[in-house]
């Protein structure tokens, strides 16, 4: 498992395939956008009802809350479990045997494909983000916060990719890992603080969430965007993300070494 190098022609083609795939099934991409917008509208209505007449709760104004939810919803759209779906499909159909004899490593192929898919998908945001800015769901950040947010977003992407890679690799043991994928999907968005920010969580739940890597995907980047994490809080957020990037990388590399000895090829 080494870094992704797009100068490698094989990987470059796989990357392009990922980009094109988004637009081959574009109805699902558009549907994804519609669902996100709907979800945003509803979350906004619910939180406005929860806030009631109060303008600000625990020093968090309702506008900040709406922007926070918009950012986490967009993160949900951007950080998809493509890589685990792809690995599972290949294990399920026995395709993995062919993949593994290719001259570039299996994991690198999968990463190239899912990075390509993400690149294609992120293009779709060009349409959505300006709209959100106009209707006031997404307050523009200060230039400084935006810069740090972009750094944080990259780490969020890597952490999310590594988690989904691990889920994908679990397929080498489980064969049918769709249940595993669904569980991680639900757990990661809730325990990642995407629907309820950590500052509103009761103490025991917050402690659990802080021990898990999922906050690095949703809560930390979003709280940097809305500047709830500033100064030392911001550095702490980036530090946590960096820690999970390294830790999950090591776990994924270790898991992959073991997964190769567990290979079961189904069908033909």
């Amino acid at each position, binding site marked *: 498992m080494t870094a992704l190098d797009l100068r490698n022609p094989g990987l470059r083609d796989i990357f392009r395939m990922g980009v094109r795939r988004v637009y081959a099934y574009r*109805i699902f991409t558009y*549907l994804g956008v*519609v*669902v996100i917008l*709907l*979800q945003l509208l*509803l*979350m906004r*209505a*619910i939180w406005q*009802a*929860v806030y009631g007449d109060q303008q600000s*709760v625990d020093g968090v104004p309702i506008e900040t809350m709406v922007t926070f939810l918009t950012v986490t919803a967009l993160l949900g759209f951007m950080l998809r479990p493509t890589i685990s779906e792809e690995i599972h499909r290949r294990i399920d159909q026995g395709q993995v045997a062919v993949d593994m004899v290719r001259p570039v490593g299996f994991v690198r192929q999968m990463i190239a494909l899912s990075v390509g898919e993400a690149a294609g998908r992120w293009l779709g945001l060009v349409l959505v983000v300006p709209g959100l800015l106009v209707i006031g769901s997404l307050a523009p950040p200060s230039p400084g916060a935006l810069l740090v947010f972009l750094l944080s977003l990259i780490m969020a992407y890597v952490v999310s990719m590594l988690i989904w890679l691990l889920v994908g690799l679990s397929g080498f043991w*489980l*064969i*049918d*890992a*769709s*249940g*595993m994928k*669904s*569980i991680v999907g*639900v*757990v990661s968005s*809730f325990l990642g603080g995407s*629907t*309820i920010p950590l500052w*509103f*969580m*009761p103490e025991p*739940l917050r402690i659990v969430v802080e021990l898990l890597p999922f906050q690095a995907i949703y809560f930390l980047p979003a709280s940097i965007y809305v500047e709830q994490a500033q100064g030392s809080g911001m550095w702490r957020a980036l530090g946590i993300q960096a820690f999970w990037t390294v830790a999950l990388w090591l776990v994924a590399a270790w898991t992959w070494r073991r997964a190769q000895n567990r290979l079961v090829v189904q069908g033909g």
Partner: protein
Amino acid sequence: MTLFSICWHNMLASVRGEMQYRASFIMSLIFGFLFQTVGFIFVAVILTRFEAVGGWGLWEVGVLYGIRLTAHGLWVVSVNQLFRFDQIVQEGEWDRFLIRPVPIWAQLMFTQFRIPPLGDLISGLFLLGIALPRVSIDWNAGLVVFLALAIIGGALIDGAFQLGSAAFAFRFLMTLPLRIVFDDLQGRFGSYPASIYDRPLRAFMTWIVPMAFMAWVPATVLLGRTAELPFPEWVAWASPMVGFALISGAVWLFVSQSRHYQSAGH
């Protein structure tokens, strides 16, 4: 073989099939339960922090949430083949539905047993079991019957939308997006008293996509909150009828659309 024993053997065979991948079977069950539990934990966390939403306390919302989830679970557990209905039409499998000597409704219900929906039903009942003793309700026989009818009525409202959307598969082949949107609306929106939303949203979910009748209206009857409804109390008592009316419409739509079926061939 009687219809009953055919269905029974079908279900047993499909449970055995699901058990082939045991780890995945168990995980699907856990997922179904977890998915819904997390939904309620979201509500619970908000309500512990903010005490009440629109004047409703934690366990009152719990009752409402439980009614919706049980109703939804009841439908998806019983009519489980609609889930993959697009595929049934696309791949021409509907041909087989038409020639088998078993009624179509029985085939939609008993061809296969799916595990994840069971999680919805179990967590709905579980939530009702926890929430009902924690709110003050003057129970009497009428109210118990009303609750049972309301859950069945709610299942039929959910069903009417699922069946009604599936009907379009005969012409357009792809209806999954429609159903996802409805599921999403119902799950995220229908779990709160509609009184917390502003007027257009509330009107939308009462009169256009009447999911308010799935849980909010029955819950106001149970909890003695009918004063917050935009219509007289007797309408609320009649709310289970909404489900029966809607499902009749959906069945009619489904049957009339099925005439447009074009087999993909086998």
